[in-house]
């Protein structure tokens, strides 16, 4: 009976931890429009140097790369979780989980690999997670 009680307490603590774990972290979302036109023309490219994720016009077989800069001005580590949406997502290559140390910035390359002609659009969603409490900061990578 005592063993069962102990198990119940442990299960209760585990359940509380699972339910309460997300409450230990702050999160914010940023979304970026992504677009690219892929053509069969091997001799020309279209470029946009604007600070957006318009990858312009490229030929089949080519790759194009821009970088997203995530800066963390806070004293605690942060975690960036990236995901792509829309039909452009099948052509996008990037690291989806990146840790950013306190008071540092990191550049995350976003690459488009053009395989078939067409116009491709979508979004890059960047979710930033950071611990609300200094004591739980080491757990941010698990969030």
């Amino acid at each position, binding site marked *: 009976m005592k063993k069962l009680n102990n198990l119940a307490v442990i299960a209760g603590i585990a359940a509380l931890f699972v339910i309460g774990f997300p409450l230990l972290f702050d999160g914010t979302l940023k979304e970026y429009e992504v677009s690219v036109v892929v053509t069969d023309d091997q*001799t020309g490219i*279209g*470029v946009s*140097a604007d600070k957006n994720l318009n990858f312009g016009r490229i030929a089949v077989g080519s790759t194009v790369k821009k970088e*997203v800069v995530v800066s963390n001005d806070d004293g*605690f580590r942060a975690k960036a979780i990236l995901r792509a949406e829309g039909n452009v997502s099948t052509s996008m290559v990037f690291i989806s989980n990146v840790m*950013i140390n306190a008071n540092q910035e990191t550049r995350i390359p976003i690459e488009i690999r053009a395989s078939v002609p067409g116009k491709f659009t979508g979004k890059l969603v960047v979710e930033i997670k950071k611990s609300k409490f200094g004591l739980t900061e080491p757990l941010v990578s698990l969030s």
Partner: protein
Amino acid sequence: MIVLIVLAVLSTLASGLIVDVNVYEDIKYTIPYAGFEGGNVQKYFTDVENLGSVACKANIRADFPSLSMEGIGTLIKPGGAARLFAYTRLDNGTHEFNITVSFCNSTTSKGPYFVDATKITTGNAIDIIDYISDHGKLRLRIRSREDDIVIISTDGGKIRSMGAKLNARTGTIYMDRPVTGKSALSIVSASGSDEFSGEIETGESPLYKKIIFSIREMLGI
């Protein structure tokens, strides 16, 4: 326990979500290319159209050591277009490599930089074609009057082309990063018919950073 609670509260007060996300302005295109047939000087070109709202500067390079380029540093205005060239002379056969064309937002470029032309001297076998700087990284184009190999070296270790063997008559020396202070540079042709040495130096003017590049002929000095 009380100490832990106090620490947790203080930690909470100190914490804030100060994270920013920006898109960096540099863009890189990699274009697989297999059209170079050996035996003659071959040219590759790509037309670049600026689809954005800001001007950009173009750069072009290849993962092949002896490729020379034209159009480096070309400023392309919004709605404008430019043609970039890369050319080389290769052994017989088909050669495959990637060409990378990169762009940066010219409005965020540092500079302007300049080089001091009066300090460059030419010799018997090697000519300096031109020298420009991009973001403080110097590019020096050279030409060998004889059809030989040109070897470039530096004691500063800051030149990517260090020890490069340029099979074509023209070649480009790239700086890996902005030069600070003085760095010696020498350019030697394989025949030993010519040799240069000089200094690369950076400085700050009241308004802009500037690069002063000088080559002084060592032979005879």
